[in-house]
């Protein structure tokens, strides 16, 4: 597949004898919005950790636009064009919303220019601020933001990085209904111009915003397909509802 942006082959991750990922293959094409689901411990976050360099795999390859990622350090992978968010959002509380975004937009700047003070707002930062709708809070420290606003700021920081691939780890976890909807809209908007992989637990959110879904279970890919196919699959129902276990026994 020449159209693949991210290509994972035979990925295996072992933590102290526990096999978290066991021979995972995954291909994400340019411009795709892919949901990654699965029960707790299925290996979803581990998969993202491997792609972003946080976890070293025992075997397998991760190739991004033809470049092998395994063994590279985190910031190098970001510089290749992969951005991620975390389940528990980490924004820099002492910096303002604007400074957080400016920092995210700035890694391409050469070190000497970092010694200057920021004057004005760079275009990428203004665009990101506009997309996440936190313009009114631009000059407030990020520490005052609500949980939902923090998640949006994280997504904004991701956009400001101008990555080619965005990896979102449970972006709606802990959010109220209104915040979920706003996040879903944001996601749809971002997916128009970016390749996005979303790890999500929330099935309702999945039904509303997903098209292509990959289901992980116990470190393996269980099913892959569109939402309807995946939902109808008896194996998916089994791992999610624990149904059929008695039948099989």
């Amino acid at each position, binding site marked *: 597949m020449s159209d693949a942006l991210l290509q994972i082959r035979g990925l295996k991750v072992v933590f102290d004898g526990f096999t978290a990922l066991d021979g995972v293959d995954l291909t994400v094409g340019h411009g795709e919005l892919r949901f990654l689901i699965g029960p707790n411990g299925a290996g979803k976050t581990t998969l993202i950790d491997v792609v972003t360099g946080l976890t070293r795999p025992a075997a397998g390859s991760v190739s991004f636009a033809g470049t092998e990622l395994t063994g590279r350090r*985190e910031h190098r992978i970001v510089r290749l064009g992969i951005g991620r968010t*975390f389940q528990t959002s*980490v924004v*820099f509380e002492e*910096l303002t919303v604007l400074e957080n975004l400016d920092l995210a937009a700035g890694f391409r700047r050469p070190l000497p220019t970092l010694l200057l003070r920021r004057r004005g707002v760079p275009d990428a930062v203004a665009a990101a601020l506009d997309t996440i709708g936190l313009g009114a809070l631009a000059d407030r420290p990020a520490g005052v933001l609500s949980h939902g606003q923090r998640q949006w700021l994280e997504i904004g920081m991701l956009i400001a990085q101008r990555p080619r691939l965005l990896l979102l780890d449970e972006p709606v976890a802990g959010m109220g209904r209104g915040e979920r909807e706003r996040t879903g809209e944001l996601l749809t908007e971002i997916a128009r111009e970016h390749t996005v992989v979303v790890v999500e637990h929330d099935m309702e959110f999945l039904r509303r915003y997903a098209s292509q879904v990959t289901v992980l279970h116990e470190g393996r890919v269980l099913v892959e397909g569109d939402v309807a196919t995946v939902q109808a699959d008896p194996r998916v129902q089994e791992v999610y509802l624990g149904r059929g276990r008695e039948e099989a026994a």
Partner: protein
Amino acid sequence: MSPRLRGYALFAAVGLLVLVVAPLTLPAFRLDELAKYLCLAIAALGIGLAWGQGGMLTLGQGVFFGLGGYAMAMYLKLHDAGGDLPDFMTWSGVERLPALWKPFANPAVAVAAVVAVPVAAAVVLGALVFRQRVRGAYFAILTQALAAAFVILLVGRQGLTGGTNGLTNFYDFFGQDPEAESTQRTMYFVTATVLGALYLAARQLVRSRFGRLLVAVRDGEDRVRFLGYNPATVKTVTFAVSAGMAGIAGALFVPVVGIISPSLLGVVPSLELVVAVAVGGRYALAGAVLGAVVMNYAKTSFSEQWAGGWLYLEGALFILVMTLAPKGAVGLYEQARDALARRRPAPAPVPDRPKTEEVPA
């Protein structure tokens, strides 16, 4: 007054106090002491940058202070010896000038080494340590061990370093008698000016994008990686800047006080600097400077009254600050200012109609 203008006004007022009022009113020997505090304040400024802004608790700044101090003192000793061996080497039975000393006969090399050697040492150490993601208490312990090791090295190699006595008895400082009142006065102005310039430079660094990045590294090093920056580079650069400042402080200390010796740069002096920064307020550069000057002044005055008591008072003060006021004196000042601002009625946001109150009816 806008905060920015108020900052400049405060800086100018302090500058006036230090450069005009103090030299006119203080007796010569008190001015000498103040010059010594200002030297230590330069080192404290570096700690404020590394620890307060960058989260690197460095307990071994004495090492860099010493490297700068010895570089300066080695030149002065060679200059005084005028082609012969420095006095202490003769006493220790050294017969030929060690190779390590030779470059320091040149004043330009020595002055460059004051900054270059500490910076190079910090870059090497930082590159090794930060790349391996050594941080927090581990980094603090490592730097403290380094200070202890440095002292052992200096004491152990008497023929090379002057041992416990260090390097002292300088007779000529760039053509001046270092003991003369006029030289001491000049050194006071030089030290104060260098401190002021370095303070402004450090402030610019903190407010730059690099400074924002440094705070981000302090508060979330792992997150910064995923913004595409290498935190090890950011920390190494900052650590090197702070080491350079300590080197300059050590070099100025030599003509001001007339000696550099292991007891001035070991574990205890290094810790005392950190305590001073904590008491003054580590999150503000001004707090670091203020802390160093006030704590060292207090140490001198207190020790004149009760010789052994200072250490207890200093320890108690440190514990009090860390438990009750982690932002130090500057933090307490800010709290008081905010509390006052809250008690005062807030300025009316948008006046509904033109102000007519002043106009008598």
